[in-house]
Every structure is written in structure tokens, then in C-alpha cells.
């Protein structure tokens, strides 16, 4: 199977492209995929329905990973002072070891276990006779060696199958130590249909075991939590720089460069700002129900989106001095951004992009491409749900299938002593009347142009076809997709781990991204695909040497 990108065709018909994507599939696969490929006709909240968060068909080369990857890799991986111990054979811990480019700064002598990889390295005898004893011993050894304030245990596939009771083991060890919080995540890889199930499991356990553990007052006037920001390539550092400049106190980031104490103190914030809706909205909801902290959707990807999100935070607190300060910061930061934008636009204007990544990123990064004058002609999520495409208003109608049903939904109630609505009903109403939206997310589809293709759980075959048919100037996905796309002569940008770049969040990040995309789409290398003798294979002359 060989594919080449041939001459650029400017026009394509989305129905034709969709038909081409489905043509080769056995009919059963084609029927299923057809519902996950949507020709966008979004009009406000009237978007057509897409099928999402359903099983990938076996044998189809998917971009997706597993539940463990979502729980340990994504959510808990970036925490720096928790010993993240993986209970299972060695592979799962090995592959999640430093590969996601989460940056951390623990200072000169702060606790930092991010560079370590911990595993119980289960052997066949553990599979046969059970691994609980080994797990308890490993927890003990980790405690004796490091005396961390917390040890988190992650289940891999065989753990659930052989019935190791990791929750009882961790509970016992926690009681034994007294000064170390130990808890476990039942995030076996086979649960759910993608990483997304792992996010939910991580959210639940963090909320159950850590949030609210530290009631000490936290200083700061405008206290927020930043949810769903993983400090890949230093994104979180840039956002924190801006927060600091504005006078915003970030109590806890879930979970880039985070610490145990940040999670434990999260209930001390007065607002939850949600970045990655897919991976963390559960915690936002639970913090609201239990402690009375409202949440809003923000996006710090894109300079304009950053400014908008800062204004949204300022408007929530409603303090004129704060609102003015935020405007000052925006005014200070934007000239540099605009200068960079004006410069790159001369080279990026009108170019096209495709994005198949994450459960929010394919939406967030559209902001940056817009700012560069580039069009996103096709996009989709690897592990999104319908609400990430169509908006949260579809949540009540979501069908709960067998794969979602086995993920625990925590029953959360208002905390008897600590529930404290940060805004009164009247205040909320006043804000809403002024157009302010709480717990609101419109999803990707309304932001995509009509006639673009929105594709859920894109696979390798479709990716190749799309590039062949629609010839984007840049394609964005993850490491597994990178080189097959680039072999076609089309630059590919990783939007999970950013290749070697970043930060791309905030104002500085926007400039970095403009320059990175400019570099990629205008690199000379794409003109070297053919050697001179391949471009002109017919010999038309010889040297007159004889």
C-alpha cells in the first residue's frame, strides 16, 4: 500500500471525501465509521449528531491508548511529589516514564519523583498466586526509601483480572504509616474505550482521597484552580506567569507541575477554570457540588483566547481594580504577539491545517491557526465525547453504554461544614443576565466552518487518505502518526507532546506556536523529495568530454 501526495487540488467535496474514506472498509466497519465522520453543518447549537466515545473496531490502526494511559500517564503523571507506583508487569510503567514532556520545577531541594519510574514488576508467580503481598512490600520499600507524603498505586490489566484488592492494600498501608496518604486507581487498560475512562477514574480518586485534605487558609485575593492543564512543554509555567502578573492566585493546577498539597487545598479556591474539558470536567462538577465553587470553561491556547479567558476570570470576581489590572496586562503583552502574528501571516495566510488530537486540543489549537490566517479543514478527537463536539447541552441525552457504565460515578453531596457557595444565586443570575456562562462549553463543531469534516477516532488509513485527498499544509496529531504523514511530504506537528517545542499557551506561547508553524510549513526540506535525476529522468545531453 503506497500513497503519494500528487498535484494540489484546491477544491474537494466533503461528501466525496467521506465516501472515499469509507470505500475500502468491510460493510460493518463502514457503517460504524460513517457515524463518526460528520460533514459539519454547525449552526450555533444546532449541530448534527456525531457518534463518539465508542469502541474502536479491532484490527483498525487507531490513535487511541488505554485507560491506564489516561489515568497514570495524563492526569497523575505530571504530579511531582507523589510516588506513582504502577502495579503490574514492567512495561506499563516503563512506557509512561518521562515520555509526555510534562515539565516540573521543584526548586533546588523540593520533592520531585517525576524522573523516577516505579513498578512492582509482576512476575508469573504473582499472576498465579496474587500480587497483593508484593504490592504491600513495594509500598513499604518506597516509604522506607523516600518517606513521601503520598503514594499512588495504579492497576494494569492483569491486576483486575486476578482480583488483587489494591484498595484494601493501600488503605492498610495508609493506616500503618500515619503520615503518608496511600490510595489506588483501578485503571486497568481494558476499561472503557480509550484514555478518557482513565481520566474519569483519576478524577474520582483524586477527589475522594486528596481534595479537601488540607483546610489551612491560602493567601490571595483572586483564588482559582486551573483544571486540565498538564504543563507540556511548559504551558503551565507560561499561564502561571500571566496569572502572577494579573494578581491571580493559582491554588491548584490539575495537574501540571502539581503537588499533593495543591490538590489537597483545591477546595480553598473561589473559581475553577477548566482548560481541557474532556479530561477534568468531573472534578469541576464535584468541587461545585461539594464545596460550592463554580466553574467556567477557559482556553489559554491562542493569544486572543488567553485575553478572553483572563477577562472572564476578572469579570467573575467583578472587582474593578482587578478588571483594570487584567486589561493592563493584556495591553502590555499583546503588542509583541501582534508583531509576531503580522510577520508570520505573510507566510501562513490561507494555508490549511488538520488536527486529530486529544479531547479538547483539536478545538483549542484552532484559535492559534485562526490567528495565523490558516483554515482548519478537518478535525476531530482521539477520545472525545459527544459533548466535546456538540456542546454540553447534549449531556442529558448521552447514551450510557456498557463501556461507560463500568466507570464509577461518585455520589457527591454538599459538604456539611465546608460547603460555601462563592456566589449567591442573585450574583450568579446577574452575571448570567450579563451574558456570563457557567458550566458551559459549546464544543468543537460550532467553531468549524460549514462543509469541513469532523472525524472521531481517526485511524491511520483514514489519515493517509485525508492527506492524499485534501492535501493540507500541515497535519497535527501524535507521535505514532508523525512520520507516516511526513513521508508524504506534509509537515506534521505533534499536539500531544509538542515534539520538542513549547510552551504554546498564553502570550509567549502564541508567539512560539506562530514561529513553529511558520518553520514547519515553509521549511525548505519539503522541496527536496525528488533528486534532480528523478524530476528529469530522460537524459537530454551529455558532457562533451571525449
Amino acid at each position, binding site marked *: 500500500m503506497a500513497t503519494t501526495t500528487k498535484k494540489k487540488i484546491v477544491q474537494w467535496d466533503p461528501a466525496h471525501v467521506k465516501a472515499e474514506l469509507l470505500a475500502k*472498509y468491510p460493510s460493518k466497519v463502514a457503517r460504524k465509521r460513517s457515524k463518526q465522520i460528520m460533514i459539519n453543518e454547525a449552526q450555533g447549537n444546532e449541530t448534527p449528531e456525531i457518534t463518539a466515545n465508542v469502541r474502536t473496531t479491532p484490527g483498525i490502526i*487507531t490513535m487511541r491508548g488505554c485507560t491506564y494511559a489516561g489515568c497514570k500517564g495524563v492526569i497523575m503523571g505530571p504530579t511531582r511529589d507523589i510516588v506513582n507506583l504502577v502495579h503490574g508487569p*514492567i512495561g506499563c510503567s516503563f512506557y509512561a516514564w518521562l515520555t509526555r514532556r510534562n515539565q516540573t520545577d521543584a526548586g533546588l531541594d523540593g520533592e520531585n519523583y517525576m524522573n523516577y519510574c516505579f513498578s*512492582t514488576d509482576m512476575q508469573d508467580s504473582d499472576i498465579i498466586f496474587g500480587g497483593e503481598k508484593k504490592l504491600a512490600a513495594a509500598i513499604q520499600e518506597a516509604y522506607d526509601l523516600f518517606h513521601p507524603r503520598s503514594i499512588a498505586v495504579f492497576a494494569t*490489566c492483569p491486576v483486575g483480572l486476578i482480583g488483587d484488592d489494591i484498595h484494601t492494600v493501600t488503605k492498610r498501608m495508609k493506616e500503618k504509616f500515619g503520615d503518608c496518604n496511600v490510595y489506588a486507581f483501578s485503571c486497568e487498560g481494558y476499561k472503557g474505550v480509550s484514555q478518557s475512562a482513565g481520566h474519569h477514574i483519576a478524577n474520582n480518586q483524586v477527589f475522594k482521597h486528596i481534595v479537601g485534605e488540607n483546610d489551612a487558609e491560602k493567601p490571595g485575593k483572586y483564588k482559582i484552580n486551573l483544571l486540565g492543564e498538564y504543563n507540556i512543554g511548559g504551558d503551565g509555567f507560561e499561564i502561571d506567569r500571566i496569572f502572577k502578573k494579573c494578581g491571580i492566585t493559582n491554588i491548584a493546577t490539575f495537574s501540571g507541575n502539581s503537588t499533593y498539597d495543591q490538590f489537597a487545598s483545591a477546595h480553598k479556591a473561589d473559581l475553577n477554570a477548566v482548560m481541557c474539558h474532556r479530561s477534568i470536567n468531573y472534578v469541576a462538577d464535584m468541587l461545585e457540588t461539594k464545596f460550592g465553587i463554580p466553574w467556567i470553561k477557559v482556553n489559554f491556547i491562542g493569544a486572543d483566547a488567553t485575553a478572553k479567558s483572563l477577562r472572564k476570570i476578572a469579570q467573575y470576581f467583578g472587582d474593578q481594580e482587578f478588571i483594570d489590572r487584567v486589561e493592563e496586562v493584556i495591553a502590555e503583552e499583546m503588542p509583541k504577539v501582534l508583531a509576531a502574528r503580522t510577520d508570520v501571516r505573510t507566510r501562513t495566510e490561507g494555508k490549511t491545517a488538520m488536527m486529530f488530537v486529544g479531547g479538547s486540543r483539536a478545538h483549542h489549537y484552532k484559535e492559534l491557526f485562526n490567528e495565523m490566517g490558516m483554515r482548519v479543514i478537518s478535525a476531530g478527537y482521539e477520545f472525545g465525547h459527544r459533548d466535546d463536539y456538540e456542546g454540553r447541552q447534549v449531556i442529558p441525552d448521552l447514551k450510557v453504554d456498557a463501556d461507560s457504565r463500568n466507570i464509577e460515578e461518585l455520589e457527591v453531596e454538599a459538604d456539611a461544614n465546608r460547603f460555601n457557595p462563592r456566589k449567591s444565586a442573585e450574583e450568579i443570575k446577574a452575571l448570567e443576565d450579563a451574558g456570563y456562562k457557567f458550566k458551559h462549553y459549546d464544543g468543537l463543531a460550532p467553531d468549524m466552518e460549514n462543509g469541513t469534516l469532523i472525524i472521531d477516532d481517526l485511524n491511520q488509513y483514514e489519515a493517509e487518505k485525508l492527506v492524499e485527498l485534501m492535501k493540507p499544509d500541515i497535519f497535527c496529531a501524535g507521535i*505514532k502518526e508523525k512520520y507516516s504523514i511526513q513521508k508524504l511530504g506534509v509537515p506534521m506537528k505533534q499536539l500531544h507532546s509538542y515534539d520538542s517545542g513549547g510552551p504554546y499557551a498564553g502570550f509567549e506561547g502564541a508567539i512560539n506556536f506562530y514561529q513553529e508553524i511558520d518553520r514547519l510549513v515553509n521549511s525548505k526540506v519539503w522541496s527536496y523529495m525528488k533528486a534532480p535525476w528523478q524530476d528529469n529522468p530522460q537524459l537530454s545531453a551529455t558532457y562533451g568530454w571525449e
Partner: protein
Amino acid sequence: MLLRHTPKEITERSALMINPAKTCQPIGAMYAALGIHGCLPHSHGSQGCCAYHRSTLTRHYKEPVSAATSSFTEGSSVFGGQANMLQAIENIFAVYNPVIIAAHTTCLSETIGDDLKQIRKKAITEGKIPEGKYMISASTPSYVGSHVTGFSTMVKSMAGLAETTGKKNGKVNIIPGWVEPSDMEEIKRLTNMIGVKTIMFPDTSGVLNGPLSGEYKMFPDGGTTVAELISAGDSIGTLALGEWCSAAAAHELDTKNKVPCQVLDMPFGLKATDRFIDALRIIAGVTVPDEISLERGQLVDMISDMHQYLYHKKVALVGDPDQLIAMTEFLVSIDMCPIHIVTGTPGKEFERRILEITKDMPFTVNVRAKGDMFLLHQWIKNEPVDLIIGNTYCKYIARDEDIPLVRWGFPILDRQGHQYFPTVGYKGALRLLEKILGVIQDRKDRDDPESKFELVL
């Protein structure tokens, strides 16, 4: 400090592995399978296994790595993965049309007892494997052995395709073990020079070091063909390089197809390459061409020219058994002193071989099979070294302890060259030497006081 919580004092651990020097079986099976032409590796387990292996191999090679998965859900984990696997076989041949599927199990499918051989039979009965297409399988439970075991098991499954027609093909099977595509290319160059006709499997050259030409081939031009694998049963003999990686397949050909075999060390360094070339000469019954003797002479020349920078320098090593055995022998042969040696792969025989090779060294040697890099780091803290040789994860130790590092092994995630420049053979040993001298002399240039700084080294 990056590894700031690693104490100098060593305490024995019975249950906790920290900073492993191995990974799990399936990735080895996947890497091996990529060395068959037209092969789609298939991971019979959760999606994450396949995603992790593809990601790691892609980061190491900066090349596309295609592989499919059975995409287990909770239901398949309870009721068995046969339905998923059968569906996968059908879809793979319909959509990707490989010549062969090389499927391996995972800890998940092993724990629930899925039997790929039986599923393959069912697929054949149900007509799911088209005429002229193949499927092989390997049982690779992650809770046994290491990535090396998985590699070895998949290579053994390849040998399972070999058939005996009774008519010898005049070729020698070469089983190169887990080496880089560049190394496989170099082994082919050497056998060609000597004039031995070979069937080498697996062969990832031309698969994982491909060109950028504007064309994407899901199944690149390289790799051992199925026809060659079938013909391996008619070969006159087998040279297996590396006990851990290659012996199982060689023994399979011996018992099943009556193809006699010789197991050698991997040809890294002077002496192991000498033995490899000598074995090829004996098999082919030819004189070793002068070009090869010249390459050997150039290596010996460089060793003698630069001996003062190598003599009694202490080295810490981490990697896989076959590679480390050959590397330890090479270092000892140039009067360097490998004093801390760790592999994550189990095997007491490894420790015995290392102690044998280093027995005349003037220092005590720490060696551990089934060890980890946390222990290696602690050994280094107690007895510092002048050089570390190992995979990219070593850079955290190298930076903390300020020790020069040569990247060699798997995975290498932060430097290039392993895809293209071999370290096997005499030319490869020259390259290893160049790299070792490069970091040692760079360190000297960095650390010498100005009064001692020298132009000529």
C-alpha cells in the same frame, strides 16, 4: 539534581523496581515482526499496549511504525478475546492487505488464557486468512522475562514458517538478534564480502531507516520475505548471534528442520567480530578477503593509537544481555574496566558470563541480572566511573554525577545515528571507539586547567 532522592546507601529491595533496565515482552515481538517484509504486527490486548510500543519504537527510530490491536474492552477481557482477534484478522486483510500478520499476546490476553494458535486455526477454517497470506503468533506474557524474551519468541515463530523440501538451498541462516537496522545492513555487507549466501531474519534494514521521498509505504521495501523464511528450512546451517535473542529460533530450526546451528556472541567489538568472521569463513570454505582484514587492522590501529585514553578507565554499563556480554568483552579487550553492569533481563548465566570475561580485571565487578538503573546509580555513587554506556535514560545519572555518556542500546530517544551507522563488525567497533574517545576527550578538554590544555590529543 534530577534523581535527587537516590541515596548512596544501598538497601536490598524485594518488591519495588525503580528505573527499570528492561521493558515488557510484546515490544520485542513487535520490533522483530517489523523485520519481515510486508508484515503487520498485531498486539492481542488493550489498545494501550499497542500504542505504547508503537510510540516507543517511533521515538527510537523517527520512522512510522504500523501495528494493529485487538482493542480489548472489559467484555472481551471477561469472555475471551477470540472474537476480537477474528474480527481484527478480517479487517486487517481487507483494509491494509499485508502479506503476513505477526500477532503477539500481552499480559491481558495471557492472563485470561487466549490461545493465538487455536484462534489462527479457527481463522483458517473460517476462511479469514486469504489465499497466499500468512499469520504467525507468539506467546509473550509481559510478566515473564523481558523485551528480549518477546523478541526471541517472535523470531522463533518466524522459524516456525521454515519448511524442509529435502533439497538444500546452499544458504546460511543468520539470526542477528535485536540489533539496529544499520547493524543488520552491516552484517549483510560482511557476509556478501566473504561470499556467503544468507537468509537473515529478522531484517529491519530498509524498514526502520527509510528515506523521505514524498511517498509513504505502509510496508516498506526491506524485511525478510516470507519465501525466505520458508526456505530457511533448506539452509545448510544457522548462525545465531546472541544466546538470549537468537538461540531459541536456531534450535527450533535444528530440531524441526534438521538445520544445524552455531550460537555466537553478537559481533560487537574486536574478538566477537573475529569469531563471527571466522565462523563465516569456515562455513563458506573460503579465505577471508583482504578488505575485511584491512578493516580489522584499522580497528587494532586505532586501539593502539588511543590506548592511553582508554587504559583502566572505569565504565558502567546497562542494557540487554547479548549486547552487554559483547560490549564487556570489547571494553576488557581494549583495557577499559567495566565495573558496574546491569541488565533488567533475568538470567544467572548472564552474571556468570560477565564475571568470566572480567575475571582478570584489577577491580571488583558489580553485575546484576534482573537489576534496575536505581541500583546502577547507587553503585556509581559508591564507586564512581569515567564513562557510562547505555540507553537515553542514563542521561539523568550522567548529568547528576557529571559522567560522560555514550548512548548505545534501546531506547535512544534523544540522539540520532543508530538507524544509519552500525556498531557491529570492525567498522562498527571503530565507530564505538570514536564515540567513547569523543566523550572522554571532550571531558578532558573541558576539565584540564588552562596550563595543561593541549592542542594535540
